[in-house]
């Protein structure tokens, strides 16, 4: 059980870290304006 808790805590920490990274990256970004408007995507 201890290992399970450690693993869960590890995953949560990893998720927290990634959340922090993303928030930092997002803080300097605006909504993407994708052009042209009607494409499915681009290779």
């Amino acid at each position: 059980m201890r290992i399970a808790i450690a693993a869960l805590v590890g995953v949560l920490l990893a998720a927290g870290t990634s959340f922090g990274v993303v928030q930092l990256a997002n803080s300097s970004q605006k909504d993407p304006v994708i052009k042209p408007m009607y494409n499915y995507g681009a290779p």
Partner: protein
Amino acid sequence: MGKRWRHLVAALTGLGLGLAALGPGLAPGFVLSYDMVFTPDPAFTPMTFGLTGTVPRQVPSDAFVTALATVIPSDAVQKLVLLAIFVMACMSAASLVPSPRLLPRLAAGVCYAWNPFVAERLLLGQWALLLGYAALPWVVASAVRTCERGGTRRLVRALVLAAIGGFAALAMSGLVALVVALASSRSRGGERVNGAERLKGAVRVVGIVVVLSLPWLVPGALRPAGVPGDGTAVDVFAARADTPFGVLGSLLTLGGIWNGETVPRGYGTPVLAGFWLAVVLGSLFAYWKWCREPEWRRGAAVAAAVGFVLAALGAVAPPVLRGAVGLWSGFAVLRDGQQYVAPLAVVVAVGLGVAADKAIGARFPMIAVGAVAAPVLLLPTLAWGAAGDLRAVRYPADWARAREIINSDSAPGDVLVLPWALYRSYPWNHGRRVLDPLPRYLHRRVVVNDALIVGRTTIPAEDPRAIALALAAAHPDSATLRDRDVRYVVVDAETAKYRPIGAVPVLTGPDLAVYRVDGAKAGHEDRVPAAPVIVAWIAASAVVFWSFLIPGTTLGLPLLGSIRRRSPDRLPHHSRRAP
């Protein structure tokens, strides 16, 4: 720790990963991204069952969502489905690791639920494909035992999620099941299985997959315009490099999706991609060296190799794939080849779990903990709605008003959607591309131009009604539209730019405009006959129902039970619960 507790911890870990990945997408509203379209109050329409003559890619996943949405709100259905993908992916991969230890199982589960494949397909909105992906480890474990007592039922249950996903998910899962059945040479007890038995298993797999495919196979085959297969799309949907390691290296690291816009931010930078490549190579080495699972070890490895070749085919040898599609349009299922790296993801995940198990055995538990956290740390931008790309939005008020007007009108005629294109980058969806939701949002026959624009390439339209209306859509006037049985024209982007001449404006808003064409007749088109489709649904549903016809079982337990017991000799044969 007991077996059920191990599954529970894996499920909770998957839930944690799902919550972390979806982030803002869990807010009230809908996540609309590329192919992922959920709408409020969806209804069963002929399109839901592929009867309108369009290619039935939405069958039966739309019916599944619509059925669930009769019980709970459809935005909650979307969140439920997306979270379930993470939970089941983590559980299924964890259950495949041949170790009773929890940490190695979690390493496999986390790796399988959090990797570039999941991130890219999620951003591309292919939740239906991911449903099949989530259950793929169960398919691997079941496909090898189809000839055993209860084996056919077990495989049907393992394939149910892929069957719900539809065309792409079932093609991928069915292929994996077939290869595993053919290539696995050992039975549960480790005895050699002869060729005849393997062939028998493969025939059963094909039979199951065909029956489960009937809901989309029948309307697809009876489609008046035939099965489309455009060779030009081979180049467009071929795998591409999203790391510094080229196309093959990108596929090996479980990325390489055709659409450059759906690569998670930051993925592919040399440092992160390099570490991730090291994890993948290390996992493959561990799988080859230490995975001693007798039943499916070889089958899963062959499936991964076959999948990798198929994934690379469009990029490495496009003329071969173009020729195959030209020969039989059914080969078009191989155009978006990157989806076939899914079985490689199974092998990589199990390999990582096996490596973690080995590390614990060698008294290096911290390596195992590192293996659990590595996928998340090396792909941090999948978190928080893939760095904010997957956000829940609400449909504008104009949309609800338009639906009210159109649904309350009993006059016949179809709905034509302008601008004449399939995908949109609505400002209210933060500019994120999405398949036009109107065909699902409105309860009438909605005609959109289903030609695909990818970069500078246009893949021709497939819907005969859209092809017939193309000229009228280019110069819309009420007389022409009336002659072609169009009752409404809905403009859902750049509303000031499009106005059909002579049509009556009934709603003009900033996000949507609706024009009525008076005097239109009921739209006539060559439809798929309903009777064979009903029979197909009955046949597929009956098989699924039959597979669960064991007293005292639930959806989860039989699937979990399908995984081989670690010490089968400990239990007398008669006490093994048929999963």
